[in-house]
């Protein structure tokens, strides 16, 4: 087995392997490690925020540092934790689910990861000199006035990581369109693959708006333009539009894969095919389509006028319809099933009520005049944490339990899994439910302190206590990972009696995934073979040599080039000598591109003999 050979290699060899890998599974694991690291960092920032708000007029951290903390918490969680964790899962699982041996552009995949990671590192390096402090939404003109280089780090860091995300989106799209196994028609694709597909479309159309916004912001801050500077004829509301034309679809970029994850886990553990598959696919497209039509509901109080507010209010509420379809289809999948409740399923079952609350408050926020009260208060904070923690984070944790055996060949410990679940789940509701009321009781968001004698003390105290529960849950989850790595139960190929293609191959899979292309005979191909055939997927081709891409260090070098150039851009404002870094960095990046373009790399072949030798 390939695991045996990896164990014999030294640390240096493993490190080099990961630095140069273009294997979608290893890139996926890199995404999970990178995203996981930033998730912990963002969590720490959240805890500091909650400690600051434990009592009225607290001075645990200063006002300026507090604004840096909220900005970095939001930015980190959205761009550097949630998105990459989901992209890691998509990277790992989607090619296995469609019966592919890798993604369409393996080199680009690796480049996408390194760009995301370097963008995240760049952004977090700002902690040493002053982090961005204008909120994760970075509204002009506050962001233009922000002293120091914090906002510059925000702009360059997100530009880098955004480029990586955009590349991955394109890569996934091409992979799904062109690399499905024989018989894997669109309407036989698992829901997680479908949501990866739709998410990639969203990424493709949403991220350019952010890119444009960030470029304008970069020029305003570094090169003296005035796109957002009112005094010189600019307009700061334009930033809000650009940001939210990206920002709202981004919410769906996060939640649709989460829906996909739950649509895999529920049928597996209910032992029943997904209820209303066609409607689920249709609802996914509807959500994505409507998701582009509602960005101005983040701007109801900007003064766009009653016509715009009314249109965006109705469009926003309309999203409840396809979302409702999904919730009821999941419920009806459970109905009549034979339900096993383990850690993966606990996170999934907890998602349904938690996310439903988030969806409900979403409709409530969509009612524009009601939003005049909710807007920019803790009500909104509660709402989006119900959606993003109760939806996305629960999904990521469910997916970890579900696919961990496939990825690492071991099953996460159930007892620890349940302990982590219950503490996190209780902590989550303690932290955020009360915040709905805090908002309506007059507590705006992004408040460094709340004053004494305003009736906000108890609510904030409860919220902070909840945050400690959540922290405890995450620590238990980390302990679980370490425990499982050392003593975890070995996983068979199909530990859950699951339904989709990824469970038909070894855990973890060989680096070429499928020895022979699988022949797909319907939705849930493995389930079909288990219930109607001999339990084995029929190959679609005779055993033959496999063509695989070569590893390359170029993506990393190219990224280092961009990283150096970004640093140069930030500091050339202070001293022109930093332009050396800009030119030097770009030279490295463009040089790497030239090498990549001019040097032929035909990949390598795994011979038939090798494949036969590895046969089980």
């Amino acid at each position, binding site marked *: 087995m390939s695991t045996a050979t990896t164990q014999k290699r030294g640390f240096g060899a493993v490190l080099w392997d990961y630095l140069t890998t273009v294997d979608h599974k290893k890139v996926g694991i890199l995404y999970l490690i990178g995203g996981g690291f930033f998730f912990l960092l963002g969590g720490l920032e959240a805890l500091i925020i909650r400690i600051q708000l434990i009592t009225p007029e607290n001075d645990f951290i200063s006002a300026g540092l507090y604004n840096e903390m909220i900005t970095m918490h939001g930015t980190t969680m959205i761009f550097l934790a949630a998105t990459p964790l989901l992209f890691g899962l998509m990277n790992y699982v989607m090619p296995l689910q469609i019966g592919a041996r890798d993604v369409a552009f393996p080199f680009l995949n690796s480049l996408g990861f390194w760009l995301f990671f370097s963008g995240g590192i760049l952004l977090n390096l700002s902690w040493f000199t002053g982090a961005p402090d204008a909120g994760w939404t970075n509204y002009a003109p506050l962001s233009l006035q922000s002293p120091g280089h914090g906002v510059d780090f925000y702009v360059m860091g997100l530009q880098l990581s955004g480029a990586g995300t955009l590349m991955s989106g394109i890569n996934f799209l091409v992979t799904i369109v062109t690399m499905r196994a024989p018989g894997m028609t669109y309407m036989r694709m698992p829901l997680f693959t479908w949501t990866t597909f739709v998410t990639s479309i969203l990424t493709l159309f949403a991220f350019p708006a952010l890119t444009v916004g960030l470029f304008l912001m970069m020029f305003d801050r570094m090169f003296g333009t005035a796109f957002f500077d009112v005094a010189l004829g600019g307009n700061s509301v334009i930033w809000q539009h650009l940001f939210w034309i990206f920002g709202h679809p981004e919410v769906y970029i996060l939640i649709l894969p989460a829906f996909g994850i739950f649509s895999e886990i529920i049928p597996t553990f209910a032992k029943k095919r997904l209820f209303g598959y066609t409607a689920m696919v249709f609802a996914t497209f509807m959500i994505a389509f409507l998701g582009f039509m509602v960005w101005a509901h983040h701007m109801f109080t900007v003064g766009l006028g009653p016509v715009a507010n009314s249109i965006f209010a109705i469009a926003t509420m309309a999203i409840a319809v396809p979302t409702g379809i999904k919730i009821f289809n999941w*419920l009806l999948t459970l109905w009549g099933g034979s339900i096993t409740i383990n850690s993966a399923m606990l996170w999934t079952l907890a998602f349904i009520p938690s996310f439903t609350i988030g969806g409900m408050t979403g409709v409530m926020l969509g009612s524009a005049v009601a939003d005049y009260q909710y807007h920019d208060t803790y009500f909104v904070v509660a709402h989006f944490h119900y959606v993003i923690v109760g939806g996305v984070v629960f999904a990521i944790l469910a997916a970890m339990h579900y696919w961990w055996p496939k990825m690492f060949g071991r099953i996460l410990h159930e007892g620890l899994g349940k302990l982590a679940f219950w503490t996190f789940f209780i902590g989550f509701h303690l932290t955020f439910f009360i915040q709905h009321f805090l908002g309506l*009781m*007059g507590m*705006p968001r992004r408040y460094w302190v709340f004053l004494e004698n305003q009736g906000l003390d108890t609510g904030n105290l409860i919220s902070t206590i909840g945050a400690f529960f959540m922290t405890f849950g995450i620590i238990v989850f980390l302990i679980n990972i370490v425990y499982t790595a050392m003593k975890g139960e070995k996983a068979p190929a199909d530990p859950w009696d699951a339904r989709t293609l990824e469970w038909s191959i070894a855990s973890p899979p060989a680096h070429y995934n499928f020895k022979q292309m699988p022949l797909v005979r319907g939705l849930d191909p493995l389930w079909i073979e288990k219930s109607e055939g001999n339990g084995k997927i029929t190959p679609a081709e005779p055993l033959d040599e496999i063509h695989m891409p070569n590893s390359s260090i170029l993506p990393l070098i190219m990224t280092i080039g961009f990283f150096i150039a970004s640093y140069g851009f930030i500091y050339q404002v202070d001293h022109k000598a930093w332009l050396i870094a800009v030119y030097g960095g770009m030279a490295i990046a463009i040089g790497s591109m030239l090498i990549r373009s001019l040097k032929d790399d035909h990949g390598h072949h795994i011979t038939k003999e090798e494949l036969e030798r590895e046969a089980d």
Partner: protein
Amino acid sequence: MKGWMGKSKALFLFTMLALFLAGCGKENLTALEPKGYGADKSMELILLTTIIMVGVFLVVMLIYVIALIRFRKKKGKEDFIPKQVEGNHKLETIWTVIPIILVLIISVPTVIATFDLADDTQASESISVEVTGNQYWWHFSYDGEEVVTSQDLYIPTGERVYLNMLSSDVIHSFWVPSISGKMDVNPENVNTMYLEAHEEGVYWGKCAELCGPSHSLMDFKVIAVSPEEYDQWVSDMQSVDPEAVPEDAVAQEGQELFEANSCVACHAIGSSPAATGPNLTNFGDRSTIAGILEPTKENLVDWIMDPESIKPGNKMTGAYPSISEEEADRIAEYLMQLKPSEITPESAGN
């Protein structure tokens, strides 16, 4: 709207009562006890949507709980393979159509209320106030009255007061939860909203858009008084003589220091439109110092000596030569005596 209100009035009152019992925050701050027209409109929609959504939630939870109890894997039937159901057109149609109807039910009053609150047909015959948002204080200038103030906005009860709002720096958001929802205060365009308070009182106002380190300290007050008291207040403010010399010697010294130390370069007394710093015409009547502190002389001295320690990032820090505590005390004495009117936050029920 009227019909809906009538039918669900009992439900409305019941829910209000439930909210009261649950504790809904500080009176005159919380949006859950509306005391103005805009806050009423928001509250109606909050209640309507909450009731519908809680209903939806209960349906979801009912199916969810029954499914989980009835369809857990049974002991002794581990090998049971459930029927693989593809879907059900009738059910799927039902849960598509019902949400569409619910959305429509919410949409109609939402659109009506949205246009209602944006109505500016009465603006020309109403009181209107130019509101300027600044880091981290509010400037109020009454149109056609030559009355200028800051931090405390006086309005008459029972009538619309139009606010034309513009920011001098970054985006702020004007929010008086008990009277009305919020509206952003942008640097590029004048946003208009109206306030209509039902009863007299001192209402808390807050800035709701991140505007810098002291964003959370940019509080202000709306002081709603009877129309007669309002007229009285306006005429009191109009009759202020900015040059008037205070009677006692300490305050006189304070006034001289106020002028000598360039305080007066930013802070106007009287109806001067200058708005570099807060207008101090009725400073002695103010409900707070710097928007957040109790209105005592000690607090004012602390503020003058070191504003940075109270409001980080404010524009007053470093704008004047350092002064001794004694001098600050005299300036404070002078400012605390600026009480042009009998109509104060106290008289309005602070």
